């Protein structure tokens, strides 16, 4: 803690350091003696060499980014969101701090220290050339140098903390190999700060002041060329990456033209993708939260981004070399559940999901991906109506058995069943219970006679052909049936209808049943149990839709809400997303088992879900855990329990 006070009698500022014992510093920055012409020439020469070495590498990187394909969907406007992201994520370091408070704060101190140092550094060189513009003895200069000193101290402490973390604590997501370059950079930053602070303690124009000036200068000039050669490139690039990011969580860009099949070769890499690849700071937050990386799979989101960088370094953006190969493994790309935890965590604005889906598009749209289960899913959706590959007649039978009203354009809501709600036994139970709640509330609703899959699994697996067919067929059916408002039990359907279909038309308004239920809670009977219910945030409801509180309100009305260690935006995937529910066995440990164990470990007697895919995954995973595991119900089922019993029984 420091405070700066203005000394009344002179322009000297006193810097009080609130440490014990409190010390009083005469806080005037010492400047070196005037330099001779030769010395000035040496300074200019060294600075030019440093700048040259910086540009030698940075120019190449910039060239690779600018020679990548233009992002066809890029729009600078609305610019407000970009400015907000920039101020919040870059200037305030909000994401860096919020998601990892201690190292985040240490990083923020280093960042803010650098910001405060811009003026100091400019003046530093100006002094060397005899044209210093900030006089330490002036009020403004004196104040600014003290102000910067506070930041310098915080920065020195911060970088020391980060050094200790990287070399002594060594969290595993920073990678197995120690990065000595990071150590060297930390040393340089430390030297910069210490030489600056030390200048307050030496006499003006003394040989020591000159020596400190030179050490500071040499540290700076060494630092500059290192930046573009290392992950410290993020210093230069990441502010731009955050500002220019596509925005909208996990947004999959439309294909541009007849020759765009996704990310196939270097020629398909867009400027945003290349910029993001070079911006990666290798902090490993993505890896730390990745369900695949945490269950022993090949996929590591950080390595995907670094793989792109490696590719760009070797082949460049004009290459015909396939992207999946030397640097990125196809298997890894198809292990992603598209849960978006990586993208959510990334502090430098990298959008992992569009890149991973882009690579899948490249493999699927060209037929390079061969997978028995995947092929079966695609064929089921090419020809049939649902991802489960079941005859559409089975859905008709379910609707008849449950006597669900058919949507005829007069009702307020179209109740969308989805593949799980229409064909999966457990999904049908959820739909049946949600329909009971709607009946009780007197909501007018109906179900469509025919539905086709929204295309969520094929969209995330990168099959644009089938996705387009499904989206167009459904949009047409909605238009024909005059559907205005949809409610669905499946967050995947909700997301796909609301966002992904926009590429092919204007979808109706759509909401998730948690939102519907939360809105009507006061009209439902209050039958609270003492049961402890742990709520699992589905990725597509939480991170994708920002709906965290409504399902919790529903759960709290049914019993006592328990939070899992990973909850809200840090929720851990059930393993079903990204089409993976249909891909069969997974290498390593099953994601669903890891999550189910975590949920059961909370001591709750009930697991509350809000997604039929999560429900299906946990059904199997909890069963595998054996005896004494919590029960499993969707929030619609938790709500329906409070209704007066009717004879309507089991669905399915």
């Amino acid at each position, binding site marked *: 803690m420091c405070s700066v006070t203005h000394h009344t009698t002179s322009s000297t500022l006193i810097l009080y350091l609130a440490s014990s014992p409190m010390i009083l510093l005469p806080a005037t920055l010492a400047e070196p003696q005037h330099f001779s012409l030769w010395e000035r020439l040496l300074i200019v020469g060294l600075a030019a060499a440093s700048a040259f070495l910086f540009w030698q590498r940075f120019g190449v990187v910039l060239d690779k980014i600018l020679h990548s394909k233009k992002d066809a969907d890029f729009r600078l406007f609305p610019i407000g969101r970009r400015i907000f992201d920039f101020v919040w994520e870059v200037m305030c370091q909000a994401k860096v701090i919020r998601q990892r408070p201690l190292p985040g704060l240490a990083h923020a101190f280093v960042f803010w220290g650098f910001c405060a140092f811009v003026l100091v550094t400019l003046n530093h060189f100006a002094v060397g050339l005899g044209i210093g513009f900030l006089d330490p003895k002036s009020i403004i200069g004196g104040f600014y140098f003290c102000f910067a000193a506070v930041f310098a101290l915080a920065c020195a402490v911060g970088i020391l903390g980060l050094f200790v973390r990287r070399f002594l604590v060594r969290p595993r997501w920073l990678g197995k190999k120690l990065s000595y370059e990071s150590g060297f950079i930390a040393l340089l930053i430390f030297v910069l700060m210490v030489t600056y602070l030390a200048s307050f303690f030496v006499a003006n124009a003394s040989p020591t002041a000159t020596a400190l000036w030179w050490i500071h200068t040499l540290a700076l000039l060494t630092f500059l060329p290192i930046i573009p050669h290392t992950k410290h490139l993020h210093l230069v690039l990441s502010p731009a990456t955050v500002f220019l990011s596509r925005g909208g969580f996990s947004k999959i860009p439309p*294909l541009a033209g*007849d020759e765009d099949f996704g990310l196939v070769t270097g020629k398909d890499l867009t400027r945003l993708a290349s910029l993001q690849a070079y911006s990666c700071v290798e902090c490993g937050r993505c890896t730390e939260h990745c369900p695949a990386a945490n269950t022993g799979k090949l996929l590591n989101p950080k390595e995907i981004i670094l793989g792109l960088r490696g590719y760009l370094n070797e082949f460049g953006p004009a290459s015909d070399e396939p992207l999946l190969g030397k640097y990125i493994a196809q298997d890894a790309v198809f292990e992603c559940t598209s849960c978006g935890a990586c993208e959510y965590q990334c502090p430098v604005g990298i959008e992992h999901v569009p890149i991973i889906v882009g690579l899948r598009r490249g493999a699927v749209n060209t*037929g390079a991906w061969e997978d*028995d289960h995947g*092929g079966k899913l695609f064929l089921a959706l090419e020809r049939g*109506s649902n991802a489960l590959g079941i005859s559409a007649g089975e859905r008709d039978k379910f609707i008849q058995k449950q006597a669900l009203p058919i949507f005829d354009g007069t009702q307020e809501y179209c109740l969308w069943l989805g593949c799980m709600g229409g064909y999966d036994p457990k999904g049908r139970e959820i739909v049946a219970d949600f329909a009971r709640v709607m009946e009780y509330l007197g909501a007018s609703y109906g179900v469509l006679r025919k539905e086709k899959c929204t295309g969520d699994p094929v969209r995330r697996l990168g*099959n644009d*052909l089938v996705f387009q067919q499904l989206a167009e067929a459904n949009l047409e059916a909605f238009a024909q049936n005059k559907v205005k408002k949809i409610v669905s039990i499946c967050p995947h359907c909700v997301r796909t209808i609301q966002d992904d279909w926009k590429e092919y038309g204007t979808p109706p308004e759509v909401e998730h049943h948690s939102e519907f239920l939360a809105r009507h809670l006061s009209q439902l009977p209050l039958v609270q149990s003492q049961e402890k219910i742990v709520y699992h945030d589905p990725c597509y409801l939480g991170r994708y839709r920002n709906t965290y509180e409504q399902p919790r309100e529903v759960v709290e009305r049914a019993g006592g809400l328990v939070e899992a260690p990973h909850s809200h935006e840090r929720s851990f995937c059930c393993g079903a997303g990204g089409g993976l529910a249909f891909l069969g066995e997974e290498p390593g440990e099953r994601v669903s088992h890891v999550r189910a164990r975590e949920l059961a470990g909370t001591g709750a007697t009930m697991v509350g879900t809000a997604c039929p895919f999560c429900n299906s995954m946990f059904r199997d995973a909890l069963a595998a855990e054996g005896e004494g595991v919590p029960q499993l119900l969707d929030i619609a089922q938790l709500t329906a329990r409070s209704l007066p019993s009717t004879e309507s029984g089991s669905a399915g």
Partner: protein
Amino acid sequence: MKIIVAIKQVPERDAQVRIDAAGNWIEETDLQWALNESDAYALEEALQLKEKNGGEVVVVSAGPERVGSTIREALAKGADRAIHIDCDDLNQRDALSVAKLLAEAVKPESPDLVLTGLQSDDLGYGQTGVILAALLELPHASLILHVEKTTTGLHVKRELEEGWFQNIELPTPAVLTIQSGGSKLRYATLMGIKRAKTKEVRRINPAELGVPASAMVALERIAQPQKQKSTQILPGSAKEAAAALVEKLKFEVRVL
């Protein structure tokens, strides 16, 4: 190797089929159409042969305008070009009449191999391919699961009953009717669809082929199948019953 694949467009598997007013055909409006399943396997076999040995795959299909979508699907999956025999009266033609159309279209191509599905999913005659072989005066084999090119001709794997298979050698040119399930079908890709746009589809009508609209067999009446449920108890110990069940699932229900 030049391979011709004769394909048929049939109602989609999930389609709600209704009988038309005349009572001898189905209502075709509002129906969704798809490639006949065993024809899809014939196409897959042809594409795999081409990938291994090089050559050309030409699809030929008879039917009205709507057949175009199925032809494009075949081109998207990798066929090189197509012949569309444009006829609106396909359902009034019997297997012989359709085989004549196909034979006339195939002859000028002088292919090394003609493949087609074992039978159609709608009419299920199982005759067209065999008659086609007779009309072309070529050797043929039916119920084929797998085809391999050898130095002298072809090596094929035929499905017999009760889980038995027959491996035989055939000279080329030949006609084979393909059984479903022999290989894994490839999915249609966006790139395939885009590339298919520039592929040649030659349209030709029955008159040009010199085949009149005649039929020796006519459909009198069609009816919806009667639903019936039957339960079968498999006797024996759990182990025996399980073995019998696996047998049935494999060879009767064909889901394993």
